[in-house]
């Protein structure tokens, strides 16, 4: 029982302990957060500083030159072209398949063991290291299907790279699209069913339009992820040394050599010597700039469509 005389109570209640352990704890936590953020800042500043000489002196020339053994002549053009080509593959292959799979899982499938199995498989696929997808691409697209994908090059072609990246990104597209579909309120579906629409009609006219911004955002973010991927491309033979672009037609281009911006960064990073360091940093700046624009686009799109609804 607590005591009841006023002075005793007063004394017991006051004497606000300077909660030193509490402040220390909070300080440590804040420190952890600041260190994590500080590393980001350090990284960005360091890269920018290193890239300065190349960007300021060579500027546009850097963006339009090919790979070269001489640092002062090397540029990222082939990397940019390659990366963009790969992204086209990813969009054309992974986007429709992924959204379709998500539509099935969220709109058609009932809660059966098969559905649960599918969901588990997809979730696990999303967690597989990207290099393993590279192995898959190597075994199936390069070696097994080499005659189709790149007869001159034992299958190490642009097509192989594109297919590999598409498969890598597919689970992520499925998961984000599924989330966007889940966010559609059931009342919309019910209203459409109520006037006698079939399931596909409901999906096509009501659910998909509502979920479109979310799906779009998710796809853009998956693209950003694919843009930075390196390991799988290395496994399926993206060129790291240098090559000349000699294709005479689209099919040959697809079956021909290629490189991507991240793989160029990888190969330059391993070169000894300070001259390539600056180039690497400049290429990183280009890569980060592209990623920044893509991510910003996704966020702006999401905000704009969120407000509309």
């Amino acid at each position: 029982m607590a005591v009841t005389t006023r002075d005793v109570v007063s004394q017991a209640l006051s004497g606000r302990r300077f909660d030193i352990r509490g402040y220390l704890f909070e300080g440590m936590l804040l420190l952890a957060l600041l260190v994590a953020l500080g590393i980001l800042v350090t990284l960005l500043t360091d890269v920018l500083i290193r890239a300065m000489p190349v960007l300021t002196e060579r500027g546009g020339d850097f963006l339009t030159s090919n790979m070269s053994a001489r640092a002062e002549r090397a540029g990222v053009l082939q990397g940019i072209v390659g990366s963009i080509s790969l992204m086209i593959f990813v969009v054309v292959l992974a986007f429709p398949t992924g959204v379709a799979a998500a539509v099935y899982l969220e709109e058609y499938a009932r809660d059966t063991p098969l559905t649960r199995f599918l969901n588990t498989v997809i979730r696990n696929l999303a967690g597989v290291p990207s290099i393993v997808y590279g192995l898959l691409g190597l075994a199936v697209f390069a070696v097994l299907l080499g005659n189709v994908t790149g007869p001159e090059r034992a299958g190490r072609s642009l097509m192989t790279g594109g297919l590999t990246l598409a498969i890598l990104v597919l689970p992520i597209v499925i998961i984000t699209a599924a989330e966007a579909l889940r966010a559609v309120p059931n009342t919309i579906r019910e209203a459409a069913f109520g006037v006698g629409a079939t399931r596909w009609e409901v999906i096509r006219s009501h659910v998909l339009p509502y979920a479109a911004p979310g799906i779009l955002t998710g796809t853009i973010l998956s693209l950003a992820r694919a843009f930075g991927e390196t390991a799988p491309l290395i496994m399926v033979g993206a060129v790291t040394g240098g090559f000349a672009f000699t294709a005479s037609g689209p099919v040959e281009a697809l079956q021909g050599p290629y490189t991507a911006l991240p793989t160029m960064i990888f190969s330059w990073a391993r070169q000894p010597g300070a001259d390539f360091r600056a180039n690497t940093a400049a290429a990183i700046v280009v890569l980060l700039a592209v990623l920044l624009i893509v991510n910003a686009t996704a966020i702006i799109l999401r905000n704009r469509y969120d407000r509309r609804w």
Partner: protein
Amino acid sequence: MSALRGLEGSAARRRRETMIRGGFLFAAGVSVIISAAIILSLAGEAFNFARQVDVSQLFTDGWFPRRDQFDIGTIVTGTLIVAGIGMVVAAPLGIGAAIYLAEYASPRTRRTLKPVLEVLAGIPSVVLGFFALTVISPTLIDPVCPGSTPLFNLAAAGIGVGILVTPLIASIAEDAMHAVPNSLREASYGLGARKRATSIFVVVPAAVSGIVASLIIGLSRGIGETMVVAIAAGAVGGSLFSLNPCQPGQTMTAAMTALATGSDQVRGASLAFPSLFFVGLLLFGMTLVLNVVSERFVRRVRKRY
């Protein structure tokens, strides 16, 4: 009855619906096909390797595939050292930042800082590998490691991996803690606990499943990480077995890239090509186990609330 006929609807419409449904099902099935393909291709070549290799080759001084030395211990230890150092960095930073954001930060701070963490998570691993090589190695590792430290070393790669994984851990752990209902915090404050005690003894234990899941996912990511190690850890041709993080080393993933960028990838020429898949299968197995375990923890979180 004519009324019934009206209710049946048109057969063509129904057939079309079934076909459409089938199409979507097929799309979903593609994921299963891919999984099967991964396992088959890995297993096929890995089995090929296992058949041809001599057991003594698996336990040699080091991993030198072109010399027919395939010491598994070397690359697995390399992976564990890098992932271990990475977790030592990422776990305190990630969970500390998560607790701060979930319990101490004002809603506005949390709204501004969480996206910043997401940005950090989006930095490609090549960039981090470059950073590890050019900044972390000379500035952090060289002073700490005894003697003269080569530029390429496992420790720098480990820290790079740690930085890569921190935002992942922070994000998942923060979500888990944010999901703890406020009524529990109220109960704790009502009993006269302060914020520190409430955070440590009520919120964290309530969110422990999600926090553990974040750590397991972080570890899985660290084990599967390739580019940071490929750039910063050195040891392109092969590596002796070593436990010393201050020296260059080889992880499973870097070994795979080294094999792929080498010249003898033609099947049957040597054991180097199938060994690639053997290591790949090992890696796939490790990360699969970790991911399945982390799923269990995530499910426990959902069941509780």
